[in-house]
């Protein structure tokens, strides 16, 4: 039997529509994680469709360049212009843990200065049309890099005031909330809890690595003690994982419709398909015999996460930020779907 994912998702959304919502903020926000922002493509129509008021826009990554071993900005977003219907744009800078690990205080100070200049450069472009009052830093810091990262955040907090950025936001992973005593609480004004990528995608047996409810459940109890107010980031994307002889090969984004409907794949279990003939899909080559596993977040899982947020989180209201702004990802959802999950 072929699975019509679109139908399921629409049906899911319809079901969710009938539920009430009291504590989730009414606004719809998104992460934009691509390397190019352009109003000419379908992004503008998405903004209109969902009446988006706030965007978390990844402006660049900071990572160690494999070839030069230098810490460098990477995938700097190319910005065209933004519609002025957006109430707020929050630029996001991803900082890899290895970029700051083992650095001296002076090296961190210098790196902070470089990142600051790059942020200013990007903000100048955004501010031609929109407000920027807050910056978000995304870093999966470790115990070893905590001190460096927090030092960096304190320096940003001080420096960014000069360019009228008054709020610092950070992303949090589940373990950082649960074990805040060990991982520390970053010196930030607000935070967003990334409630996805909770499972082990390398393990072919993992039910759903995007949102592994069983694993996630172990982490939610520490929510109420967390000292910073945090909102919730939820993944809407699906992906297809390619395995060969039990080993993960690669991720194929947005391939589920093609995989679930084409004769090139043999369905061997729910969301699991075997490649019948070697061919290209979404620009990637899959070989005969490869296993494709479709993963996506369903309404039951999202409902569960929201329940946990209500039960364990201190503040009554929170905003959901969806990951991420992409026409293909969002195709099955209406604005109402995204506003009323419960």
């Amino acid at each position, binding site marked *: 039997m072929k699975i019509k994912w679109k139908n399921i998702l629409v049906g899911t959304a319809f079901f969710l529509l009938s539920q009430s919502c009291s504590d989730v903020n009414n606004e719809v926000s998104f992460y934009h994680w691509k390397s190019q922002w352009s109003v000419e493509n379908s992004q503008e129509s998405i903004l209109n469709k969902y009446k988006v008021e706030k965007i978390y826009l990844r402006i660049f990554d900071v990572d160690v360049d494999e070839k030069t071993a230098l810490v*460098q900005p990477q995938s700097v977003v190319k910005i065209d212009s933004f519609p002025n219907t957006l109430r707020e744009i929050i630029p996001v800078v991803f900082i890899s843990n290895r970029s700051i690990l083992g650095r001296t205080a002076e090296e961190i100070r210098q790196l902070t200065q470089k990142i600051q200049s790059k942020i200013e*450069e990007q903000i100048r472009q955004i501010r031609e049309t929109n407000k920027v009052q807050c910056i978000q830093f995304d870093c999966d810091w470790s115990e070893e890099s905590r001190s460096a990262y927090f030092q960096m955040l304190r320096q940003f907090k001080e420096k960014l005031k000069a360019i009228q950025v008054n709020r610092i936001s950070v992303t949090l992973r589940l373990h950082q909330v649960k074990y805040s005593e060990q991982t520390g609480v970053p010196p930030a004004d607000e935070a967003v809890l990334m409630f996805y990528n909770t499972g082990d995608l390398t393990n072919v047996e993992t039910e759903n690595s995007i949102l592994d409810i069983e694993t996630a459940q172990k982490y939610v109890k520490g929510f109420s003690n967390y000292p910073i107010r945090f909102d919730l980031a939820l993944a809407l994307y699906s992906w297809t994982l390619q395995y060969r002889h039990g*080993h993960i*090969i690669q991720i194929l984004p947005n391939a589920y419709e093609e995989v679930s409907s084409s004769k090139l794949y043999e369905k061997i279990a729910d969301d699991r398909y075997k490649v019948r003939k070697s*061919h*290209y899909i979404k620009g990637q*080559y899959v070989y005969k015999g490869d296993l494709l596993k479709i993963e996506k977040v369903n309404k039951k899982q999202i409902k569960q996460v929201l329940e946990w947020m209500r039960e364990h989180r201190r503040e009554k209201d929170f905003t959901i930020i969806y990951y991420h702004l992409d026409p293909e990802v969002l195709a099955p959802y209406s604005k109402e779907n995204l506003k009323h999950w419960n």
Partner: protein
Amino acid sequence: MNMKNWGNKLLLILAMCISQQTSHTCGYDFSVMYYKFMENDNISDPLLIWFIDYQPEFGLGYSEKAKEPEDRNIEEWYQFLKGKVSKEDLIALIYSSTLTELEDVAKMRSQVNSPSIVQLWKNDSRLKKKMLTYLLYAKKCEEHALWNADYWAEYKEPDQGRLKRLMEEGIQEAKKATDPFFKERYAFQAIRMAYYKGDDSKVLEWHQTYFTSIKKWNHICYRALELKAGSLYRMKKAEAPYLYAKIFAECPERREVALTSFKISSQDEWKESYAYCTTPAEKIAFFAMRGLNANGNLNEEIKNMASIDLNHPMIEMLMSKYIQKLQSYAFPQDLEENFINYPRVEDRKALEETAITVASMLSNSQLKNKDYWRIAEIYLQMMLKNDKEVQLKSKKISESSEYKEKAKLLSFVSKICHLQNPSDEDIIQIWSQYLEDLSLFSNEDLKGFVEDIFSLWFLEKGDLARAMLMHNDMVVLRNYLNWDLILQLEKFINQAQDNDIDAYLISQRCAGREQAKQMLLELKGVYFLQRNQLDKAIAEFRKMDLRYQRTSVYFNNSYLNKSIWTESVRNPYFDTAIENQNHNALYKIYPFLNKRYDLISYAEQLKNLEALTVKDQQKADQYFYLLGLAWYNTGIQGWNRPALYFSKDNSGHSKWFSYITKDPKIEKNFKHLYWQYETYYNPDIAANYVKKGLQVTRNKELRAKLLFLWAKIEKSRVPVYNYEDEKYSPAYYESFETLKNESKDTEYYKEILNECYDFWRYVYPK
């Protein structure tokens, strides 16, 4: 070998692997350290070695055996100048000179810093002018090629006007140039500027004009072809991947660029692009590049390539890459994941498929480098655990073959992997074989693996001493002391046989039999000392001869003199000046403390303090506190742990309450909590002294110190933070609570509040 018991044995082996030796592993793939028995240096074309470890995210791999492609640009300049200049001077002139320096030379303000070129130009001023004119132009172009070299600098769009002027200048010069050498180079630079400007039609037009009729392809032709391919890619033309394949096939120094640029997005595009191929090498390159991709199925691509040209060296490249992957799967250093559990059902299927491919290659009489493929076959059979086949096929590699040593290595690895329940004679015989063959004994990867396997064999026989010594120097065993091990060590030292393996363990792990006897006495003493059996400890230490007592670094461990009695909330400072200050301060407060720093003196000091608690009851609280401090500080969580335990880097702790070790194997033991079962540590010794101190003290400051020390001791009951229940012993919370309620007005309380996050958070919960 009883496979069912392997799991339990592995747990023990894990505990035994705390070695002071450095890691032997040199393989690295997908973040996994693994034993590497098949080096990537045995393929026909050394220029391809770089690609065996290639990973799209990380670029080319590294190998000492890999051959760098020659710099054909410099070579062509050298040939053009008929060898009248040195290549070093050419490199300095072409690559290192700046635009300003060249302008100064052109304006006769300075000379180039290359003697042979100065001489050449002195003799030929026309040539000097030609070269300088081109190099000045090329340097101007280079600025655009490097516009984003500093990624932190603000991004600026390329100056379109300047690019246009450079395009025009280059093409004019190309038209004017009579010498093909300069004509091609000007045309290339002009095409390059057109490419950066985004003017794809000019790229294609000029490439057509200047490069399509060239008969003898040189470096510049391939560079120009790259730009043409780039333009075609932007235009979504299927010819683009074909051109990259051609470059990959024919131009070694541009292979990496070609590989990273080679992109095909659909089956139709593949067909269309592949149809451009005119030579087998180009076709082979298509499959090789697809195989090198992250998702490449190496076996499939090997079959594809072999059907075109059985003897193409790129097939060996993919086969070696395949073996590299197998090694990372089957021989990770993590013993839990090693060869014993390999292959799983899925792996076996993959191996069998590849074995069929290799067998089919070998059956083809046209195959030239047969021994390479025989080695591949042996490797696959080893992975499939067909030792019989491995031994049989290894023997078929002739003595004169360059692959003979590889065959010998694989035959040995396979043999030790598959030997079940080896007899003592077998073990001795195999060890002697290993020891006598320099090619085996000098292989660092094999050494680590052999230690793992032999250690397991001894463990299966209940021979803990040899199993432990196979991995560790004798001194490391102070971390794993139990009486059974001591007896086994004693037996081993006294009855070591006259064979290679015992001789190795005695000489390499115990520094000789006599030294081993002294070390054993020291270990016995440490065993008793760790258990607070001071008289027995002192008696054992006194049995050691005086020479050993004077020279043993572990008996005279420097951690015995490093602030062992410190009251500091955080780490004591271990740099000499502050350490001396600390010591001096301590000796002023406690003048009775012994100033000799060895294990006997330390044990006697503890005895003395114990006696003082009875003799000098007025100060008993102080003595109990000092005893508590000493036992906590020399315990597993204490700052002076290396005094009684082995520590690879001999360091103390860098963080309050959190134990972080630099030794990955120790860390692993922490993770799995095997360590607590293997290493003796009794926090009750310290806790009991603290409790006695609390019972008798009337001093509020000392009471605060005792309470805080008690909390530390209670926390040390769990070797690592327990993520599951997040609880320490009730006494931990009790001590904090009492401290909070009763010691607020003490100085030490303020110090704790200031220095200790855990207590601060306890007093001020969120």
